[in-house]
C-alpha cells in the first residue's frame, strides 16, 4: 500500500503559496491601481506660421501658450519616445494619449471641435518653418507649405474634465475583469470607471501633474503602433485649427502638451511562461 507522502505534500504547498501570492492569485493583495501614469512634456514644440521664414525665431518655441488658426500651426513631438517604445508596448491597456489644455481664452469644447491632430510624414527639427521641415537641403522643404501630414489619419480629441470623466462618454462599464488584449500576457482587470483612467488619484505618477481644468485628450495608440513601434519612426504631430484657439505651450509646467500612458507597477516577464504583477 502506498503511503501518503506528507513531506512531499508540504514541500508542494510551501512552494505553491508564494508563487500564487506573487501572481496576485489567492486574495493575498491585488493592487487597487496596479499602474501609475507615465507622462512627458512634448519637448519638441515648434510654431510655424505662414510668412515667418526666420527658422530660429524665439517666439516660435518655448512659449507659455500658442495660438492656432488658419496659417498658424503647431508641430509637436516627444523627442525621446524611442526610448520608451518597449514601455508603451507593455503599458496597461496598451493605451497612449496626448493631452492639450486650452487657456482661459478657449473652452475645451471649442478646442475639441476646432483642432485636428495629424501625423507628420516628414522628419523635422526646431528650425522648421511654414516652408521647410529643416533647412539643410532641398529635401528639407515641405511638399506642401504648412507641413506634410497624413490627412486620412487626422483625429479629433475628447474632452476630459478635472475629475477624469468624459462628459461625452457613455456610462462607465462595471469594474469587472476585461479580456486580455493581444499585447497582454495575462488578463488584467480594468481599474477605474473612467474613459481614460487618468483620474486625479492616478496622477501620482512620474511627474504628479494634476490637471484642474477641462482638457482635450487624443488617442494616439494607432499612430504609435504604426510609426514608433512598427517602423521606428517618430515624426510627431501637427495641430491644425482653422478657428483661432489658444492652448498652453511647452513652457507651462502642468498644462503643456503631454503624452500619457499607464505603466504597470513593477512589471516583469517570467521565463517564457507569462508575466506577473507585483504589488
Amino acid at each position, binding site marked *: 500500500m502506498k503511503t501518503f507522502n506528507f513531506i512531499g505534500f508540504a514541500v508542494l504547498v510551501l512552494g505553491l503559496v508564494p508563487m500564487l501570492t506573487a501572481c496576485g492569485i489567492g486574495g493575498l493583495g491585488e493592487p487597487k491601481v496596479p499602474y501609475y501614469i507615465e507622462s512627458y*512634456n512634448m*519637448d*519638441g*514644440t*515648434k510654431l510655424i506660421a505662414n*510668412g515667418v*521664414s*526666420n*527658422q*530660429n525665431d524665439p517666439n516660435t*518655441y*518655448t512659449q507659455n501658450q500658442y495660438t492656432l488658426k488658419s496659417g498658424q500651426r503647431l508641430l509637436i*513631438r516627444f*523627442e*525621446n*519616445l*524611442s526610448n520608451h517604445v518597449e514601455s508603451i508596448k507593455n503599458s496597461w491597456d496598451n493605451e497612449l494619449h496626448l493631452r492639450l489644455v486650452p487657456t482661459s481664452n478657449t473652452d475645451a469644447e471649442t478646442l475639441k471641435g476646432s483642432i485636428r491632430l495629424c501625423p507628420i510624414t516628414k*522628419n*523635422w*527639427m*526646431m*528650425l522648421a*518653418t*511654414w*516652408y*521647410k521641415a*529643416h*533647412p*539643410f*537641403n*532641398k*529635401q528639407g*522643404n515641405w511638399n506642401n507649405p504648412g507641413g506634410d501630414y497624413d490627412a486620412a489619419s487626422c483625429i479629433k480629441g475628447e474632452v476630459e474634465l478635472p475629475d477624469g470623466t468624459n462628459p461625452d462618454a457613455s456610462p462607465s462599464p462595471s469594474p469587472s475583469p476585461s479580456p486580455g488584449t493581444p499585447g497582454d500576457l495575462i488578463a488584467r482587470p480594468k481599474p477605474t470607471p473612467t474613459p481614460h483612467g487618468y483620474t486625479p488619484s492616478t496622477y501620482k505618477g512620474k511627474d504628479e501633474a494634476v490637471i484642474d481644468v477641462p482638457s482635450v485628450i487624443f488617442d494616439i495608440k494607432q499612430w504609435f503602433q504604426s510609426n514608433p513601434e512598427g517602423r521606428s519612426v*517618430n*515624426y*510627431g504631430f501637427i495641430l491644425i485649427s482653422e478657428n483661432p484657439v489658444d492652448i498652453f505651450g*511647452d513652457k507651462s509646467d502642468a498644462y503643456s502638451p503631454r503624452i500619457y500612458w499607464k505603466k504597470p507597477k513593477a512589471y516583469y516577464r517570467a521565463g517564457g511562461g507569462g508575466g506577473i504583477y507585483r504589488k
Partner: protein
Amino acid sequence: MNSKSVRHHVERMNPLLKAFLLPLALILASIIALMITASSDVWAGTTNVGNGDDGADLEGSVPLDSGPIVEARKKAVDRLVKLDVEGIPGLGKLIPEVRRTPLFISKRDIPADEANGGSRYHSDMSGMLFASTFTEPNAPTTFYPAAKTLNEDQLIALHIHEALHRALPPSVAEDENIVSQITVAITSPESSNDRIKAKVLKLMPELDSPRMTFSPADAMMTAEKYPVPEDAKVKRPSILGYSYKVFNNPQSAQDSSISPLTSMQTIQSFLYPFGSDKNPIGIGIELSFLNRVDGTSQMGPLNLSTRMRLWSSRGFDVGAWAVASLNTLSAEEMKNTPYGRDVLSGGLSMQKDLQHFYVENLLGLTSQGKANQQIGTIPYTYDYGSVVNATVRAGAKLGMFRLGGFGELFLADYYRINGGAFQFDSGRYEITSGGPEFTLEGNSWSVGIYGRFILNSTKDANFDYLGNVMGQGVGQGSIGGTVAIKL
C-alpha cells in the same frame, strides 16, 4: 659684416664744422651700426641696412617708395633684362641687385669724400653726393637730394653703377674705375650684350676661365635665375589690415540659410619676424566681429595662424600655413550656433610671381569638428567631417593693378545634425566655388575687393556645411574688401 662703404667725395667741408659734426656723426653711426649688427647676429642673417663708415649718409634717411628715382630703377631693370646681362660672367647678380636694393632718400645733401676717390656717378659738380651703398649683396642704396637734379638716363646709370658695386666679385667691387667702365658699357646708347661681355672680360680676364670657381655668392647668383619680383608678397609679407565681408545669406522663405550672420569685420595682423629674407616665418592674429540678422553685433572667432616660405625652386615659392580658428572669444550667442566650433586647418601653397602674372596653388586640410546648438529644449549637435580643399588663384599684374580670380574645390566627408528625434547626414559632398579678385598694390599698402560664389555643389551643400566662418564664410558666398598696410 663688411662695413666698408663705397663713398665718393670731392669737396671738403668747413673745417670747424667738420671738427664737431663728423666725430659726432661717427659716434652716432657707430652706435647704430653696433645695434643693427647685434640684431642681425641674433637672427643669423646678413642684414645690410646700416651705415658704412661714418654713418652720415644715412642720417635722416627715409624709405623711398615713389618718384623719378623709383621709376628709373624699373627702367634700369628693363634695360638690363633687355641686354640679357644675366648671362655675362660676373654680372649674374646685377639685375637682382638693382631690383631689390632698399631705396632711401636722405633729407640733406652731404659732401663727397675725395679721399675715397671721386666719380662722376656719385657726386655732382659742386661735390655733393648723389648716392651711396655698400659693397655687399642686398645692401641698401641711399640717394641724396642732389640726385633729384639728374635726368632719367643719369638715374638709370646711377642705379646700375651702385648695383655693380654690390654685384661684382669682391675683388673688383670697390674698384671705381672698373665699375665705371662697366657702367658706361651698359648704359651707352650703342651697348649690346657682346660689347658688355667683351668689356667685362677685358677688365676681369679671370672670369673668362672655364675652370673658374664660383664663390657661394656666385652660386646664389645662379639660383637667382628666376628672381622673385620686387612686388612679390614674400618680399614684404607682414601686413596690418582690415576687411569687411558681406555674406550672401538668403533669408527668404524658400531659400534660407541656417546662418544668422549677415556680415563680418576682421582686423588682421600678420607679422613675419622670424626666419630669413628667403624663408620668412610669421604669426598672424585675426579678430572678428559678426553682424547678425537682427542687427546686433558680437565678437566672432579668433584666428591664430602661422605661415612660412619653405623653399624656392625655379622661381616657385613653396610655403606652409596652419590656422586655428578659435571660438574662445566668441560671444555666447555665437557659441550657440552651428558655427560655434574650433576649426584647425593647414596646408601647402605654391606660388609663382612673374612680372605681369601671378599664379598660386593651395592644398589644404581642415579638421573635423563639432558644434552644439540648443533650440528650445532640444540640443542639436552639428558634426563636420574633415575637408580637403584645392585652390587655384591666378591673375595679371598691370602696374599697381592686380586683376584675377580664383577657383576652389572642397571635398568633405560629411555634415551631420543630430538632436532629439531628428537626424541628418549629408554623406560625402563637394563644393566648387570661385570668384574675382581685384587689388591695388602700393609699395607699402594694398586695397582689394573680392567675391566668393558657389558654382556647383552636390547634396545641395553650401558654405554652411563647412562650418568655417573665418575661412569660407557662410551661406552661398560673400563679397568683401580689404585694406592693408605692408610692414
